[in-house]
Every structure is written in C-alpha cells, then in structure tokens.
C-alpha cells in the first residue's frame, strides 16, 4: 500500500508462547496467564491489606478498598438489586476489581495486552454469572415458577404468546451469557487491535523520510487512544459487573 504497512496477522497479536513450565500442557504459563495471576494477586492484596489494619480514618490501601466497595455498593448493587442484593456485594466487588486489573494491563508498558482479549476468562466469568442467576432464581422462586416467570412476560396477549415464549427462552438461557462474554472479549480485542494498528502506523511513518511530518498527528492519536483505553477498561469492568447484578436482580425479584 501507500506506506508499505506491515500490519501483523491477528494470531501474532494474541498468541503468546509459554515462558515457564514449557513441557507441561496443564501448567505452562504465558503472558496471559501471568497477567491473570497478577490481577488476582493485586485484587487479593488490596482487600487483605485494606481489611487487616482497620483504622477510623482510612488512608493508603484501606482507602482504595473502601472507595471500591462503596462504589460497587452505591452504583451497582443499590441501583439494580436494592438492599436484598447485599449478599452479592463481595462477589461483585471481587469481579469488578479482577476484570478491571486484567484489562488495565493493556496500557501498562512491557505487558500491553488486555488479558480478557482471549476468550477463556470472559467465558468462565459469564458461565459463573449464568450459574448464579439460575440458582438464585430456582432457590427464590422454586423451579417451575422460575421457568414460567422467565419465559412468560406479564401482560402479553394470548395470540402472540407462543412467539414471545420462544424469543424469551432463547434470550434468557442462551443470548444473555453469550452476549455477556462477547461484549467483554470483543471490546478488549478491538481496543488492542486499534492500539497495535496505530503503533504499526507510527513505526512505518518513522522510517519513511517524507511522511515523517504526519508522525506527530499519528502519535497524538495513539496517545489519545491509550487514554481512551483506560476508560474502556474501567467501563467494561463496570458494565460486566452491573449486568451480572441486573441479571441476578431480575431472577431475585420477578416482574408480576
């Protein structure tokens, strides 16, 4: 093309070779695994250290933990489930922080890969959500009432009821977990691809002598997009958590 751009294929951007325990197929560790372990460790450390030395006037890590819990409580649990949902506050807080930290590695130098741009962990988290809201529905409403409430929406005319039941069945039991997974995964993958593309463009411009005048603009856009990716990391963690809360709240309090 014009600049002789050499955009790498997608497998090269998302597949990482193992660097530890190479021989074993179960315990082989690559960059994605390392990022997940670090995200888990950071989440654990914040709440263990924040909870172990409780002071009346919080500062340091205790402050971070308290602000995080307060954010999840006020913006997510109270908005979607009400005070009944407080049982799920620990799970939702952990979920939020874990997703946020594994996303934010996208813009941290030397890692620069959002771990959720691989399929596996969003799938596991979405299945966990699926399991939780189904179990909550069965426990709170009883199995038959739960299925009836989730596939027969109130106030639908008898004539179009069969069609609505099929749509609701597919939507409730298939599309919800699937879209939850795809949303997180595809957003992070798209962000990663955009950053990679602009880095490649910047490198290509740097080599060509004439086009180097465009380089500042391209680099400024790369810089701005990196900032945008911080927002996206936060927003995707928030959206995943709030949708989990909405789904659990929906099966906890059925519409009449």
């Amino acid at each position: 093309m014009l600049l002789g751009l050499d955009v790498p294929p997608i497998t090269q951007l998302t597949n990482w070779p193992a660097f530890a325990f190479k021989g074993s197929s179960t315990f082989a560790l690559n960059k994605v695994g390392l990022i997940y372990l670090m995200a888990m460790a950071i989440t654990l450390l914040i709440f263990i250290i924040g909870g172990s030395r409780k002071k009346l006037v919080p500062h340091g890590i205790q402050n971070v933990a308290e602000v995080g819990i307060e954010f999840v409580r006020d913006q997510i649990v109270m908005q979607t489930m009400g005070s009944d949902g407080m049982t799920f506050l620990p799970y939702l807080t952990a979920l939020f922080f874990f997703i946020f930290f594994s996303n934010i590695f996208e813009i941290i130098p030397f890692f620069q890969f959002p771990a959720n741009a691989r399929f596996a962990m969003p799938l596991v988290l979405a299945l966990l959500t699926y399991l939780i809201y189904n179990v909550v529905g069965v426990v709170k409403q009883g199995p038959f009432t739960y299925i009836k409430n989730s596939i027969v929406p109130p106030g639908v005319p008898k004539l179009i009821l069969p069609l609505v039941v099929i749509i609701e069945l597919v939507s409730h039991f298939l599309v919800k977990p699937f879209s939850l997974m795809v949303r997180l995964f595809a957003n992070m993958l798209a962000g990663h691809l955009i950053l990679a593309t602009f880095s490649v463009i910047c490198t290509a411009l740097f080599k060509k002598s004439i086009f180097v005048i465009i380089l500042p603009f391209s680099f400024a856009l790369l810089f701005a997009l990196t900032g945008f990716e911080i927002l996206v990391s936060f927003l995707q963690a928030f959206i995943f958590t709030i949708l989990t809360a909405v789904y659990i709240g929906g099966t906890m309090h059925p519409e009449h």
Partner: protein
Amino acid sequence: MLHVLAAAAADNNAGLQTIGRGIVYGAAAIGPGIGIGLVVGNAITAMARQPESAGTVRTTMFLGIAFTEALALFGFVLAFILK
C-alpha cells in the same frame, strides 16, 4: 448477499475475503451506531431536564449502550470467524 459472500470466502481468494469481512463489520455497525446515538442523546436530554436524577439515568444509559453495542460486537467477532 450472504451466500455471495460465503461463496467468495470459499473461493479462498484473499482479496474478496477481506472485502467480505469489511462488509460484515460495516453492515453490523450501522444499526448499533444509530441505536447508541439515540440512547445517549435521550439520556442527555433527561439529565438536562432533571439534573437530580442524573445518577440513575447514567447507570441506565450504560446498560442501554451495553445492550445495543453487543450487536456491533457480534459483527466484529463474526468478521474474524468468517472464512
């Protein structure tokens, strides 16, 4: 149009395949683009009319964006899966 695209992809012609992927993603982005515009526009109107309910409106807006955006992301993923 879809079977034309599928035939083009089965042809193992890299150029046509790339065009097909572009069309898939481009077509998938039209509807959600309009949808997100509507959601955010109406949310801003609501916030401007009733600033005290801005918190609730913002949460609901993000939910609306997430549901609408999912359709565009299906297209994005499909563009990669398409062979």
